[in-house]
């Protein structure tokens, strides 16, 4: 079943790149949800496997949490927060879409190059999956930089988190349980706080264009 995981990891990557290519906030959120589902599936696989082998249900629990959080709650929150600007097409990028996609491919290559030096993840399969997952992290980060609106940052952050989670689950079959829980709590609060702030920014600056936040310089 390893190749299923390979497939899923590749799909993850694709979803990330897809995200980069989008322009509408709604489609951002949709893509994010899609990615969340993929993660849930991966987690399900892994959890099932570990249930069979070690009889631990940690990962399954986490899988459930993911479904609850990333597939349901967070997208809902985002929808609520950005209801008024959902259909606005984000126009001004620092670079245009094709170049962004190209650069994200470069990032994939880069992460392959850098990770391949590490003997720790020797066996090819793990390596491939980790590389994909890792590229998702970088792409998420890159996405944050490439989008000017606040939503861009939030989504990018979430994608990073996804990538990290998948990297964790691929490379070490998950962190210690308590850590994972903590991570999830942090993430949800982070997103909450960001959301609240976006609302505040929106009413203070009457726009969520982060580029307007440039009073503090030097």
């Amino acid at each position, binding site marked *: 079943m390893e190749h299923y995981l390979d497939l899923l990891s590749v799909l993850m990557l694709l979803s990330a790149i897809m995200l980069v290519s989008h322009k509408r906030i709604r489609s951002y959120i949709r893509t994010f949800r899609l990615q969340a589902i993929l993660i849930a599936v991966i987690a399900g696989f892994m959890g099932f496997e570990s249930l069979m082998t070690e009889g631990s249900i940690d990962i399954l629990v986490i899988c459930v949490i993911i479904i609850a959080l990333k597939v349901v709650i967070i997208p809902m929150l985002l929808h609520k927060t950005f209801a008024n600007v959902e259909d606005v097409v984000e126009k001004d990028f620092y670079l245009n879409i094709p170049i962004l996609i190209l650069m994200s491919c470069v990032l994939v290559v880069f992460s392959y190059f850098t990770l391949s*030096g*590490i*003997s*720790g*993840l020797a066996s090819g399969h793990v390596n491939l999956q980790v590389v994909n997952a*890792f590229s998702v*992290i970088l792409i998420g*980060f890159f996405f*944050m930089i490439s989008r000017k609106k*606040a939503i861009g*940052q939030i989504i990018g*952050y979430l994608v*990073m*988190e996804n990538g*990290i989670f998948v*990297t*964790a689950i691929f*490379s*070490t079959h998950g*962190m*210690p349980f*308590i*850590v994972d829980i*903590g*991570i999830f*709590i*942090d993430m949800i*609060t*982070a997103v909450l*706080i*960001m959301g609240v*702030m976006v609302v*505040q*920014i929106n009413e*203070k*600056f009457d726009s969520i264009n*982060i580029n307007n*936040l*440039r*009073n*503090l310089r*030097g």
Partner: protein
Amino acid sequence: MGLVLWIAPLIAVALSQFAKKARTLHAISIGVSLVMLVLAGYCTHAVMVAGELTYTIFNGLFLIDSLSIIILDIVTVIYFLTSIYAIGYLQEEVRHGKISSEKLRLYYMLMYVFLFAMVVALTVSNIGIIWVAIEATTLASAFLVGFQNDHNSLEAAWKYIIICSVGIAITLVGIIFLHLSSVDVIQSGDALKWNVLLSEAKHLDEPVLRFAFIFILIGFGTKAGLAPMHTWLPDAHSQAPSPISALLSGVLLNSAMYAIIRCLTIVNKNSGDSQFAGRLMIGFGLLSVLTAAIFILSQKDYKRLLAYSSIEHMGIIALAMGLFTPLSIFAGLLHMMNHSLTKSMLFLASGNILQKYNAREISKIQGLLKTLPITGTVFLLGLLAISGTPPFSIFGSEVNVFISVFNADQAGLGIVLILLLAIIFAGIAATLFRVFFGSADAGQVQPGETNLPGALAICVLLIAIVVTGLYLPDGLKDLFIAARQIVLGG
């Protein structure tokens, strides 16, 4: 007993729910900070006796050794003084109708959460939990940064939370790889425990560990304000209410640095020398000092200036840790303490100035010594102290850093460092000394201290840095030496 350290802030949160009057809120805050102080004292004693303090419940999740107790003491002491200061400060704010009593409660609750997260970060053995806690500090303090809720503070808060969350996310990557490097060595029970990792360090998978360290360094470095990840720091520190700035600069940076030091220890023990990690630390450290120098030379806003000086000192600490000689580590730890005390004093003082003149621009402030005799004097002496003038404490640790640099035959590095610090002093003198002289236009500023508890607090801090300038209690020195041993790898 030590576990009360975790419980007390939570209780405080609960209590402040029911507090009706502002006075009760203040009382609670003083109470809890006092409790924390006492507990810290108790733990210190325990650690001095036993070397480390741990409990069996949560299979040894709670663990304090000399290294963490030093930082913990700094936290509790500064928190205590800050909460004394905060009383006067907040009353002033309320008096000017800047904040409502409802927001006062929110302020205190967030403070407690912040404190809780920080204490947890310093008292747990699991690096994963440390990560969680430090992320939690970000989340708790984000609102505190944006507390004034005007354009600038909101912007600062936004940048703070975005950049720090990203940084901390990167740390998570590092921690995953740290875990990965130890999966086949350590059974899952005490995975990610730094004490176990340290004792097993030799068997960890070196390349993965290195890879992990990169991310941990960058991630926690973001929180510790190392250049080039420092960018959130000037905004947050300058926009936050002064007690918060004091805590951010004096305490939060340290706990991030603490996490870095933990991992540094493991990596160095694993690879046997400080080549790899040391270079990175020194690089970031020097870069931070350089950045600070550039920005301080022509700074217009005194709180920003203080923030940049925090970056500088974090850089010095990182550099000292990177050198990884016994002397440099000792000096670095000492510098952490000295910097925290001095910088929090400065930020508190700047809070008084801000309330009096209600302007952040240096150009708008004159005749400080006349207007605020106590605060002005403390601020002046504090500036001298922060720029490494004898006989204040920072001079002692800085000189030891220099000596250790030259001792490690890094003359070039040392010369650059010394000259950069001289430039920074020049910058501070050129930009900031003018505020003390002349006399304020009597129109909007009338002389006299407004925040008397605050004045008391900063005076205590001043005495502390003057005394520690030439003298360390033996117990404290032993603690530092023990901590040095730990950093050196037991």
